[in-house]
C-alpha cells in the first residue's frame, strides 16, 4: 500500500499501486480482484483520480509512440504519453496538439478521461474532439476499439468518462499543422465584467486563443487581464525560447501562502504590472499555455491542508448575473486565490456524455482549504450555478453534491450503462453510488 494524493493535496490515501508498462500485458493486469482505477500524472484536483484502499493502475509507463502519419497528421500512441512529449517531438516536425489544458504534464489518457479544454475552445473544441479512435481495455478481459465508425457510443462514453468505462491503452489523435512554436499575443486590461464580455465577443472571430485572469478581490467592479493570441504563420521571424529553468516549491509551508493578507495586495500588483505591460508580444507556446509548468509542485503553496479548485460553467443566457454573483460571494468571503480564470467557451456541444465544456462562461478559482468556511462558500456558489443551469468540472471537484452533478450532466443515466464494474473512484462512489 502506498500513500497517494491528488493535485489539491486535500488528503493522502492508501492505494495498492500497480504499474502498467506493457500495452500487451495491461489487459491481464487489470482483470479481476478489487476495483481499480487508472492513474496518470495525478493532476486532477479532487477525488476523481483516487480510489482509497483500492487499486491504482499507474499509466505513465505506457509511454510509447506507435505510429505517425505525416500526411494526415495522425498520431497513435499509448495512453500514458505526456502531452509535453508529444509537443516536443512534433512541434519541430511542424505539428502540434490542437487542444491542451493549462498544464502539459498530463497523460493522453487523463486528457481523454477529463475531456480537457484549452484557451482555443471556440476553434478546436475540447481534447475529445481530436481523438480519432481509442483502444479500451475492460476489466472482464475485453479489449475494444472505439472510433467514429466503430463503437462510437463507447467513444462518447469514454471521452470525459473519468476513467470509469475501462482503461484506455492507446489513442489515435489528430494533430494540427503549425509553422512555428510562437504565438503573437495581445494583453488587454479590463475594468468591468461588461468590458470582459465585449472583449471576449470581439476576439472570437479573429483570435484562436482567448483567456483572462480575473482579480477576485477587487471591491468596486470585476477587473482583470484579457489575453488573446494566434499562432505565428509562415516564416514570419522567430521569438524568444523558453528558459527551460525549473524551480521547485521545496516544501509544504506550515500555513497557506495564499491568505487574506497576501491575496489582495498580490492581485493589485499583478493587475497594475500587466496593465502597464499591456500590448503586443511574441511568446513561445510553452510559457503562454503552461505558465506554471516550470514551477514544480506549486500546489504545495497552499499549505498542509491543501486546496480546492472550483470551476463552473454557466450558459451565456444569464451568465453576467451568475458570474457577478459568484465573484461577489467570493469577495465577501475573503477567500480565493490569485489563480483565477474567466473564459468563454465556443458555441459547440462536446462529444463526451459527461464532458464539461458547453456554450457559456467558465470561472475557475483556487481556494486554500479552510474547512467548513470554504465548504459553506461553495454551497453558495453551487446555488448560483444551479440557478443558472450550469455545471461543475469533475476534474477539479472534491465535494459537489450528487444532486448538482445529476442536474448538470443530463446524460449521466446513459453514461452509467457504459461503466466498467471493476473500476471505481472516490468520486464515482460519492456521485454515482459505486
Amino acid at each position, binding site marked *: 500500500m502506498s500513500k497517494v494524493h491528488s493535485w489539491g493535496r486535500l488528503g493522502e490515501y492508501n492505494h495498492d499501486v500497480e504499474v502498467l508498462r506493457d500495452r500487451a500485458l495491461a489487459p491481464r493486469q487489470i482483470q479481476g480482484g478489487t476495483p481499480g482505477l487508472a492513474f496518470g500524472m495525478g493532476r486532477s484536483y479532487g477525488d476523481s483520480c483516487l480510489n482509497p484502499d483500492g487499486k491504482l493502475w499507474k499509466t505513465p*509507463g505506457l509511454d*510509447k*509512440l506507435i505510429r505517425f502519419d505525416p500526411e494526415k497528421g495522425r498520431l497513435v500512441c499509448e495512453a500514458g504519453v505526456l502531452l509535453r512529449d508529444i509537443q516536443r517531438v512534433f512541434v519541430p516536425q511542424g505539428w502540434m496538439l490542437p487542444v491542451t489544458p493549462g498544464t502539459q504534464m498530463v497523460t493522453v489518457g487523463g486528457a481523454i478521461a477529463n475531456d480537457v479544454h484549452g484557451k482555443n475552445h471556440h476553434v478546436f473544441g475540447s481534447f475529445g474532439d481530436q481523438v480519432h479512435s481509442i483502444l479500451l481495455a475492460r476489466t472482464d478481459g475485453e479489449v475494444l476499439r472505439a472510433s467514429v465508425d466503430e463503437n462510437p457510443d463507447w467513444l462518447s462514453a469514454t471521452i470525459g468518462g473519468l476513467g470509469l468505462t475501462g482503461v484506455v491503452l492507446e489513442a489515435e489523435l489528430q494533430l494540427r499543422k503549425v509553422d512555428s512554436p510562437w504565438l503573437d499575443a495581445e494583453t488587454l486590461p479590463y475594468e468591468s465584467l461588461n468590458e470582459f464580455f465585449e472583449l471576449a465577443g470581439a476576439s472570437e472571430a479573429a483570435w484562436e486563443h482567448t483567456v483572462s485572469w480575473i482579480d477576485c478581490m477587487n471591491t468596486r467592479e470585476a477587473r482583470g487581464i484579457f489575453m488573446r493570441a494566434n499562432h505565428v504563420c509562415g516564416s514570419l521571424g522567430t521569438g524568444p525560447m523558453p528558459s527551460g529553468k525549473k524551480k521547485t516549491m521545496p516544501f509544504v509551508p506550515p500555513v497557506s501562502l495564499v491568505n487574506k493578507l497576501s491575496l489582495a495586495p498580490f492581485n493589485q500588483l499583478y493587475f497594475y504590472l500587466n496593465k502597464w505591460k499591456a500590448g503586443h508580444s511574441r511568446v513561445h507556446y510553452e510559457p503562454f499555455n503552461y505558465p506554471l509548468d516550470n514551477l514544480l509542485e506549486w500546489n504545495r503553496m497552499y499549505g498542509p491542508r491543501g486546496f480546492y479548485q472550483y470551476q463552473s460553467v454557466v450558459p451565456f443566457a444569464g451568465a453576467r448575473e451568475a458570474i457577478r454573483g459568484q465573484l461577489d460571494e467570493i469577495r465577501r468571503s475573503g477567500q480565493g486565490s490569485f489563480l483565477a480564470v474567466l473564459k468563454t467557451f465556443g458555441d459547440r456541444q462536446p462529444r463526451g456524455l459527461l464532458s464539461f465544456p458547453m456554450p457559456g462562461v467558465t470561472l475557475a478559482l483556487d481556494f486554500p482549504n479552510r474547512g467548513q468556511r470554504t465548504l459553506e462558500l461553495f454551497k453558495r456558489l453551487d446555488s448560483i450555478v444551479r440557478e443558472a443551469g450550469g455545471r461543475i468540472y469533475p476534474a477539479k471537484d472534491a465535494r459537489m453534491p450528487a444532486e448538482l452533478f445529476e442536474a448538470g450532466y443530463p446524460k449521466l443515466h446513459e453514461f452509467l450503462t457504459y461503466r466498467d464494474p471493476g473500476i471505481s473512484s472516490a468520486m464515482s462512489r460519492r456521485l454515482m453510488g459505486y
Partner: protein
Amino acid sequence: MPKRIVIIGATSAIAQQCARLWAAEGASDFILVGRNADKLEAIAQDLQVRSPEVTTHTETCDFTDPIAITNLASALAEQGPLDILLVAHGTLPDQQACQNDLTIARDAMLINGLSPAYFAEAFVGKMQNQTSGSLVVIGSVAGDRGRQSNYVYGAAKGLVERYAQGLEHRLADTRINLTLVKPGPTQTPMTAHMEGQDKMAPLEQVAGDIVRGVKAKKPRRRARLVN
C-alpha cells in the same frame, strides 16, 4: 555517418530514456538487445516515430549465456565500429526470497553481476582497437556497501564496479572511454512498489545525466548520479 549505438537491456526504463535522448540528438542506428522480441519492437517503433531519421534493429539474446554473448558481440562488431555500448539490464531481487532460496540468489547475482561483466568483456575486446567509442555500464550505489535489505543485489553490483575498474585500467591507453554510472534510487518500474518513490530521482534526470556524462567522456565512477 549515423552513430551506431548498442543497448543491452533496451527494455529497461533508463535505457529507453537514454535511447530517446540519443535519438533526439540526430541520426543514429540503434541495435536494441533484450529478451522479449515484442517489447523490443515496441521500443524500436517509439524511437522511429520520435526521430524519423533513426534506424533500429532488434536482437534477442540469452543474457546469461557467455557463448551467445560472445557471438552477438562478434556479429555486431563485424558490421562496423560501435560508437556507444550501453549495458543497462538488471532486476531488483527480493532479498528475503534470495535468503530463502539460493536458486533465486544465484539467478539474481547472475543477471545483475556476471551478465553485465560478460557483455562488457565481450564488447571491449571488439571495441578497444577503434579510434573512438564509449562503453557505459550501469551499476548502483547499492554496490558501494552491503546492507541487510539488499546485499544480494549489492554484491552483484559491487562485482560490476570492480570489473569496470579493471576494464578502465586496461583501456587507459586506448581511445575507448568507459563510464560506470551509479544511479541512486530512481523512479522506474523496478522501484514502483517501494515506499517514497516520488522522492526518488526522476528517470529523465538520470538518463540526462548519463547522456551528458557520455558526451563529456566523464571519468568513470565520478558520474554525479547519486541522489
